[in-house]
């Protein structure tokens, strides 16, 4: 999927608080990535994403917070770790996705409101769906 995003890159942005926090929360050294795209190639959800996993890494390490914030990619990721086990550089992209989600959730901005899940569905869903979903999508 190709989507042109006009961006301004600068040393200042790549040393921004956002880039620092993503690195700190994920524990991942994003500079290791050489953009081979195996993460995107192995991601079963990539066709539903507006920015591919490979590009998320690039945007995150350039500190391009707004571009990432306007994307739905991190909310589509199911943390299946197909990217992580296939990364030739040993990066765990699922941790990067989680870090970016948390930077929103920790501002008390939830992605899902439990009351919006239809009652019947709430009763039918296995507990692991509710617990894991609310863990990933609420602060």
């Amino acid at each position, binding site marked *: 999927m190709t989507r042109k995003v006009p961006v301004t890159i600068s040393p200042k942005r790549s040393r921004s608080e956002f880039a620092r926090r993503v690195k*700190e929360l994920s524990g991942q050294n994003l500079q290791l990535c050489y953009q081979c795209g195996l993460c995107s190639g192995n991601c079963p959800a990539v066709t539903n994403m507006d920015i591919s996993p490979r590009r998320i890494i690039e945007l995150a390490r350039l500190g391009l917070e707004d571009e990432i914030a306007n994307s739905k990619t991190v909310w589509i990721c*199911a943390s*299946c770790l197909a990217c992580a086990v296939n990364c030739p550089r040993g990066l765990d992209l699922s941790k990067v996705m989680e870090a970016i989600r948390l930077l929103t959730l920790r501002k008390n901005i939830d992605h899902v409101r439990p009351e919006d899940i239809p009652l019947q569905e709430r009763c039918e869903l296995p507990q*692991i*769906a509710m617990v*894991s979903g609310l863990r990933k999508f609420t602060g």
Partner: protein
Amino acid sequence: MSLAYYPGCTLKTRARNLEEPAVASMEALGLKLDEVSGWNCCGAVYSLADDDLIHRVAPVRNLTRVEKQGKMELVTLCAFCLNTLKRANLLMKEDVEKRDTLNTFIDEGIAYNGEVKVVHLLEVLRDEIGWESLAQKVKLPLRELKAAPYYGCTLLRPREVAIDNVEAPSVLREFLKALGATPIDFGESTQCCGSYQIISNPNDISEYARVILSSASSHGAEALILTCPLCDYNLGQGQKELSKKSGLGEVPLLYFTQLLALALGLDPQVCHFELNYGSPESLLMAKGLLS
């Protein structure tokens, strides 16, 4: 002989058809699953943020209690619980600073060091009982049943907690062979079903399910064999609608423990087939495995 056993929340409600045949089968194999007393929810997913210790309290508290009860091995059945408990255990083994913080917070009176070995029931069958020995105990071989193993994510990823080869797992294949069934390989057997996305993107889940089910079906599978209650829900709940839309016939979903109980000749009532998606009973009857 008994094994410390962690059931987790879902197995006590929606996934009784995963748990009850397992408990009965293990008893028949001479290994009683002894439920850990005072267990709590494991948290379902392992926290992926480095600074998030509070969400590691739940799995570590379970592990601490296992050690306090004098057990050094913990058997799990739910793939989510296995993953969360095993990853938390690894953290307690390898990160001294976080271990100390968690031990102090949990305050169970012992300093837990990650020494309990967390295993999945499939590992017990493979490594402690062995496929040959299991095959000898089969009373009703599952002949002519073409079953596709579906691993999903959490039994195999990340690499450090995988119960088998990440790229080419074989444990379910060997298990099915031991029971006399015909395992059917297909390319999506380790592909994610969409997991917790069911609560926010149910439409995406239907598409993931269509890809997985149609691939298994086109490879000749008559049923999909599962280990995880969330895979079961994601692949099962929309099957009727999917079948109407895409013309794909329903693919019965079965937990591996149900096939185990059936093959060991136990009362089929213990399998709770009424809780399954895709009407496996008619398939099993057609194969002469159920009357």
